[in-house]
């Protein structure tokens, strides 16, 4: 009796999985892995979505020479394809794109999103809604703004890394430009300042005699976004100044010409820490920025002797001055030129002076203009490098 019942239950439970078909099952060969996404402005405010898809061909297969959108280079060339679709919104474009694909698109490994210049100027908030709401897109993905069209950036064929996305990601890790993830951007845009800086990428001119597509995009500066729209560019120098304020300077090399000395000095920053301290005295809002650096001497062409205490102190002062001026230029650009709180100062005041901030948040722009930002930089040269000699020998 009991056995018969068990057999029935067993049979029923066997039928269930076989008939259902494992709804969420997706073989890897049924996936189109998106490595990078580009969002460009199309006519009538529509968005042109371009994706770079990984093509898993075994090494040794002849790459697809036909097809204008396949970017297969010579042996060992890239294994990616760029496809595009246009729609009234990103979601629409995605669905259209899927109709052109034999495999299911998946953004789970997409760590790079590139906005075209025009799209950035149009405004990226709508696109961001899709990116944040969709389950597949990663909040940790990095965002970039590219010169011209994003799709052109995707079509490039880096020779060192696997693809464009990897290149840009690694560059961001080296802290060459600002590291803005999707979530970080959300935070910046939701703060009272509603401003952000995205890294700006341009195509590196390729070597002569080489396929012009075999090159990379690299970070050349930043784009200032206000209310989700691009309002201007920062050159590399200004962007670096911004990085100093954000404590994102891992690979900083500072080269400067100290006064009264021939030649130049290059210092490599080991550790730098910027502390921003807000204060409100009466009606005056100010932020005191204190930057402490530890550096190593990298190149010295001034003829100064590194064991000379006075010389070292001079160098340190000159370095601090140099850094200070960079930061001041950036602050100037942020406050005066763009009137965009790209430094996250709104959040600073929210944390330390909540009541004042609550009153000021509605017209933060005008308040921001009046904030005094004082910058105080200290540099300490720790080590003179490996060599003891000094130029000229």
């Amino acid at each position, binding site marked *: 009796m009991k056995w018969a019942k068990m057999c029935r239950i067993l049979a029923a439970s066997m039928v269930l999985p076989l008939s259902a078909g494992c*709804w*969420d099952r997706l073989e890897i060969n049924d996936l189109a892995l998106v490595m990078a996404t580009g969002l460009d402005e199309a006519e009538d405010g529509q968005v042109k979505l371009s994706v770079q898809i990984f093509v898993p061909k075994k090494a040794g297969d002849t790459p697809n020479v036909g097809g204008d959108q396949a970017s297969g280079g010579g042996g060992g060339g890239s294994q990616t394809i760029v496809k595009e679709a246009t729609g009234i919104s990103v979601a629409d474009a995605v669905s259209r794109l899927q109709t052109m694909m034999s495999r299911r698109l998946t953004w789970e490994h997409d760590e790079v999103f590139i906005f075209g210049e025009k799209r950035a100027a149009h405004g990226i908030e709508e696109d961001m809604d899709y990116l944040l709401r969709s389950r597949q897109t990663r*909040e*940790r993905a990095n965002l970039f703004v590219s010169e011209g069209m994003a799709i052109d950036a995707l079509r490039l064929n880096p020779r060192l890394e696997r693809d464009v996305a990897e290149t840009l990601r690694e560059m961001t890790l080296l802290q060459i430009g600002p590291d803005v993830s999707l*979530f970080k951007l959300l935070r910046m845009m939701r703060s009272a300042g509603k401003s952000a800086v995205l890294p700006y990428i341009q195509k590196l001119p390729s070597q002569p005699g080489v396929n012009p597509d075999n090159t990379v995009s690299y970070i050349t500066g930043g784009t200032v976004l206000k209310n989700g729209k691009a309002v201007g560019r920062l050159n590399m120098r200004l962007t670096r100044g911004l990085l100093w304020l954000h404590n994102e300077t891992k690979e900083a090399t500072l080269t400067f010409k100290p006064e009264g000395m021939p030649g130049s000095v290059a210092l490599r920053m080991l550790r730098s820490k910027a502390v921003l301290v807000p204060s409100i005295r009466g009606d005056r809002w100010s932020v005191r920025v204190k930057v402490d650096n530890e550096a190593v001497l990298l190149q010295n062409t001034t003829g100064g002797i590194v064991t000379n205490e006075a010389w070292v102190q001079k160098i340190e002062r000159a370095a601090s001055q140099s850094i200070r001026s960079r930061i001041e230029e950036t602050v100037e650009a942020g406050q005066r030129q763009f009137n965009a709180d790209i430094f996250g100062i709104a*959040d600073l005041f*929210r*944390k*330390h002076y909540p*009541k004042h901030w609550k009153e000021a948040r509605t017209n933060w722009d005008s308040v921001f203009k009046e904030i005094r930002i004082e910058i105080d930089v200290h540099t300490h040269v720790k080590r003179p490098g490996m060599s003891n000699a000094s130029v000229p020998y």
Partner: protein
Amino acid sequence: MIEAVLGRVAGRAAGILFLLFHLHIGGATIRDYSEFISGNFFQRTPILVITASMLLVCAMVVKSGVETIARCAQIFMPAVLALLLINVVLLIPDMDITEMLPILGNGPLPVVKGIFVVQGWFCQFVLITFLLPYVEGDKANRAGYWSVAAAAATMVLINLTVLFLFGIDASQFYYPFLMASRYIRVADFIEHVEAMVMASWVLGTFVRISLFLLRCDRGSGILHRGQSRKAVRLSCGIAADRVRILGRPQHAGAAELYLDLGKYVYHDGIYCLSCVSRLDRDRSQRDGKIIALLLCAYLI
């Protein structure tokens, strides 16, 4: 026992109310779990499969007895804790303690409001009193204190992690800790590990639901004076029903709410009927009939 206190009729009524209360909470728990798993990991799988699989496993363990549940909990607790801690530790590089500021920037009122929400969770701790008959000796007291303390500590840890990571924008997400887990990237290698959070949900929910089923089982035992394995399945069915009832979008309008209540009452009516009819029909027949009744009600 309740009958002894309140007399026969009132006791039974109180027993039924107690049971319904449990069913509601249990159904809500199952619903939460299914929505979480389905929405975040298995979008195309029907919710029923996710619910049914969990209920099946919980019914298995309830059948085996309290000690089995306790042992399983003993084994799974370190696992859940470890998963949680790994998540937190891997996020330390991304945390920013200044997100804690401003402290009491808006006065103490928001904190008090928040306490009420959390209170609802902690209130459920009183439900472990039904386990008292199974605890030997004096351990109940200490165990209770330790449990509450541990739960509180875990909640604090998780909330702080989310706060330090996301700041005031944590409210942008439905599942902040899951988002935090998705945010982990360590050494370019450990990334996309949100399945750890799913694992801790599954294990934790398993223990919760099995305890809830145990309560239902024992609770309905009070009503019809004798436990039966079918009672457990019955509870399963009812709980699954609850899921269907509550299977409305999360922001249901008032009209839908009444519809909910109506169905609620209807289903409970069926259950009460079944309890009553249980008294005079043949045992095996009646269980089959009840299940059939429930299935009909389910399909309507």
